[in-house]
């Protein structure tokens, strides 16, 4: 499985979807930062970079992850390269876990890249960060289980659908619906309702604005995302069961 992983990671770093994703995420953060910079009365006295500016992209990271996973794994079906792994004797569980680990790593890396670069740019544009390294790391680590739940969900969809174009359509639609649904609950009344963490985007919204929510007393502190962890386990098990029993076929690009 290590060799499979090595091959998969090489492909990840070469893939355009992985290379483009951090830039897409950063656009949103930069817009926020430069709007704030443009509104400054006195550019000699910089207000500093709040935590939410560095993490604001997590609001839309669900959509980006959906597209990334369906493009990256869907290519295995459209290119029929998934056949090579199965024919040459790799177990379906090993193949699935390789895909999962690669996507988890890819998502964690482009999320970290977007956050890190945004912090550096924000530092220059708005001044010294208003958060500690500890707060930065904590926020990043808290976002990971949620992202992992999102990745496992869209991976399961791509594996079941076995068609890149259809998988992108379904996953992107799902992610938009989840985002809209989460936004609906994004008010002071619901922030402390931990059951809503079952909506990964809800937790990500909360995380994006955690410094504001905590300072304004809306929430006491950001809870650990227990429910996304459960979702991650659940989607992984479902994906594995389906993948181990499904008839694998390929759908060349352009065919639905």
């Amino acid at each position, binding site marked *: 499985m290590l*060799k*499979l992983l*090595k*091959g998969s990671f*090489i*492909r990840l770093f*070469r*893939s*355009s979807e992985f290379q483009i994703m951090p830039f897409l995420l950063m656009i949103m953060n930069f817009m926020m930062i430069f709007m704030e910079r443009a509104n400054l009365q006195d550019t000699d006295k910089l207000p500093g970079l709040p935590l939410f500016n560095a993490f604001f992209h997590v609001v839309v990271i669900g959509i980006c992850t959906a597209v990334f996973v369906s493009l990256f794994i869907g*290519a295995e079906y459209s*290119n*029929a*390269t*998934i*056949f*090579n*792994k*199965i*024919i*040459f*004797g*790799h*177990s379906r569980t090993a193949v699935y876990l390789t895909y999962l680990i690669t996507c988890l790593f890819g998502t964690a890396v482009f999320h970290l890249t977007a956050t890190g670069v945004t912090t550096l740019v924000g530092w220059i544009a708005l001044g010294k960060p208003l958060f500690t390294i500890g707060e930065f790391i904590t926020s990043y680590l808290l976002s990971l289980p949620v992202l992992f739940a999102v990745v496992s969900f869209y991976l399961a969809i791509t594996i079941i659908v076995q068609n890149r174009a259809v998988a992108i359509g379904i996953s992107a639609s799902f992610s938009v619906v989840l985002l809209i649904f989460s936004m609906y609950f994004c008010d002071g009344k619901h922030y402390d309702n931990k059951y809503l963490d079952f909506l990964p985007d809800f937790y990500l919204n909360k995380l994006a604005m955690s410094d504001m929510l905590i300072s304004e007393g809306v929430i006491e502190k950001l809870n650990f995302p227990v429910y996304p962890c459960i979702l991650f386990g659940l989607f992984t098990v479902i994906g594995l069961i389906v993948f181990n029993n499904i*008839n*694998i*076929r*390929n759908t*060349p690009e352009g065919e639905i």
Partner: protein
Amino acid sequence: MEFVLKTNNLVKRYGGFTALSGLNMNVPKGAIYGFIGKNGAGKTTLIRLICGLQNPTAGSFNLYGTENSDRNIAKCRKRMGAVVETPSIYLNMTAEENLKQQYLVLGLPNYDGIKELLDLVGLSDTGKKKAKNFSLGMRQRLGIAVALAGNPDFLVLDEPINGLDPQGIVEIRELILKLNREKNITFLISSHILDELSRIATHYGFIDKGFLVKEMSAEELDNACRKCIRVEITKPEALTQVLDEMGIDYKFVSDNVADIYSKPNVTQLTLSLADKGCEIISLKEQDESLESFYIGLLGGENNA
């Protein structure tokens, strides 16, 4: 005879549709096995099953002597390569990068042999050209190179010449013959382009509606398809005597009808038979191609 693949009453159903209904086939070691059938006959389904992409509904198959239900079947599959439906290649990678990926999938310790593989399939001069910019024939050859990584001794090719231009068809044909002769690789090739298959296959399996209708060697097929003169006479014993005297190969297909497998001097034959009081009722040249044999086998042109 040693067999690489044997299937035993293999059945595959998709919901209410039966793609394979008790298929029995035997692929001998070192053979180029032409698997012939019309679209939807079950060729690709069988290939998917033996490649482990799908599981049989009933029945079994035996690869290098290992049953498909055996845990070691995955190990046996390491000895085979396959191009199923389309070449399994990353379109955004070069030929060399694709082979490197495959070497990693196979867990090979180094990249030795990639150059030889590219030479073998005639892709060594593609440089940094990405596979998406390759012609269909080049992609097909790269797919075969990927399948050849790891030195398999059994190669499964599903419709390898579909969509290729005449030059591409010749290239693939020569590659298959070269690999079979030089590396003694056993081939299972599914196709419905019979003329092309008849140039390379050493064994044939004819499939229709999920059944293997007939399995035969190229020699048997040649005999069945031999050019001959079909003659209908009144005295079979006279014909036997005359043809034996002339040293001509023949076979009776019914009481008064015989196939003569060479070109006799018709005048001499007619006179000799007349001397023995035997009349020739009809005389016509028979020329059965693989195509007409196939049509005859599957029962009419509707099946072609």
